[in-house]
């Protein structure tokens, strides 16, 4: 198995505060890594460093062998990234927005149209294709962001809370979508919904206060205690409080 995502001793400090502290892991093709942790643990910062949005203080990250700091554009070409909150341009139509993202990734002409149509089909957006994004519900906006991350069929997907704000049916659809894509890709999803990890992930990486505190399979994680919730609390709360 070749590792498509390699993170080595990645560290990010904001002033005196260390958001991500010496994080190391890699993700191979076919793996779906659930990136778990309480709010503020450093999940989003790690993902942003992977996407080249935040510059690491120390350490390196590579996507398909391309360093995110030295070869940012090449690294991002392999990557489908869904930022936290799935930001979109409110005044653009769904099609317009997806076309913009696909065009920025170098697609033109009929291939561009095919990519956008395929991404809309995967995320069931055909019904709202001409609506301005700002008129859509939260669940639709999230799927627009997801469609933008998928449109170029990237080998690496980094999705920051892909199911946040979706109703149970939509969550089910997105999980099915992730499972269907999994064999061909390396996927990292962040979440704080623990059941999701058991449902879609092949591996769970738990992060607390910027450090990796567990890196194992969801089944093994669940077996460590009476419930997944209890294990999560034991791992992520400071010792004295647990």
């Amino acid at each position, binding site marked *: 198995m070749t590792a498509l995502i390699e993170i080595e001793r990645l560290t990010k400090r904001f002033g005196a505060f260390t958001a991500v502290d010496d994080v190391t892991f890699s993700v191979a093709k076919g793996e779906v890594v659930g990136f778990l942790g309480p709010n503020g643990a450093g999940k989003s910062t790690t993902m942003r460093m992977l*996407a080249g949005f935040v510059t690491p203080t120390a350490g390196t990250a590579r996507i398909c062998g391309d360093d995110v700091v030295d070869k940012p554009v090449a690294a991002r070409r392999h990557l489908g990234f869904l930022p936290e909150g799935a*930001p979109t341009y*409110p*005044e653009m139509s769904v099609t317009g927005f997806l076309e913009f993202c696909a*065009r*920025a*990734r170098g697609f033109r002409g009929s291939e561009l149209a095919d990519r956008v149509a395929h991404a809309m089909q995967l995320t069931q957006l055909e019904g709202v294709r001409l609506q301005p994004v700002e008129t859509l519900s939260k669940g639709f906006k999230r799927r627009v962001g997801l469609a933008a991350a998928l449109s170029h069929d990237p080998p690496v997907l980094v999705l920051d809370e892909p199911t946040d704000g979706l109703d149970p049916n939509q969550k089910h659809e997105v999980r099915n979508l992730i499972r269907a894509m999994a064999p061909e890709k390396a996927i990292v999803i962040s979440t704080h919904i623990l059941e999701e990890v058991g449902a879609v992930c092949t591996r769970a990486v738990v992060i607390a206060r910027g450090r990796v505190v567990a890196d194992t399979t969801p089944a093994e994680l669940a077996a460590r205690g009476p419930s997944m919730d209890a294990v999560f609390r034991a791992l992520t709360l400071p010792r004295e409080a647990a």
Partner: protein
Amino acid sequence: MGGVVTVFRRELASYFATPVATVFIVIFLVLSGALTFTLGNFFARGQADLGPFFTFVPWLFLFLVPALTMRLWAEERRLGTIELLLTLPIAQWEAVVGKFLAAWMFCTIALSLTFPLVITVNVLGTPDNGVILSGYLGCVMVAGAFLAVGAAISAMTKNQVIAFVLAVAACFFLTAAGSPVVSEFLSQRVPQMAEVARAVSITDRLAGFSRGVISARDIVFFASFIGFFLFANTVAVDQRKAD
């Protein structure tokens, strides 16, 4: 270069998808027309040229251009789309240049919609249309310089009001530096500064253009001025994108 074109197209379309375009263009046209005919004494001068119009354009741009640039980066930050834009496989300078060119094109469109003034002077007399064209070129250059400054300031702050106020101050400095009030004051008290003020004065250079003189010095000045601030903009975006 593909990234520049992609960002340019999206940005330009977004001006026209929101009321920004309508409000900006209508206010610009009303004010430029009104000032030319009232304060500029367009009829009483009895000259078939657009001299008064060209003197007012920098003063209008002084307020209107910062209104365009204040949202350029600050809005991306507020919506979080900066994270999306800068994680697409385009270089940061491409995003900076694409945004700048779209805003510049938008100002050029607004300027070109003042064409009824050109028709008016051509009906009333026989103006030198080459001089008018050169005046318009000067106005486009001034717009570019103001946009470059404003965009760089917008990249440095999250707050749109701060971006607007600082950009107005910077543009005011560039506009007023060549005015008799400033140059007399400076040459009497700090003669060294008077040189600097004259050198950065945009009004002096625009006056050259509106007399029909397109000098290489002025073109080089505007090109290097815009280039410098686009570079500063790229650095600012890189440093402060995730704040």
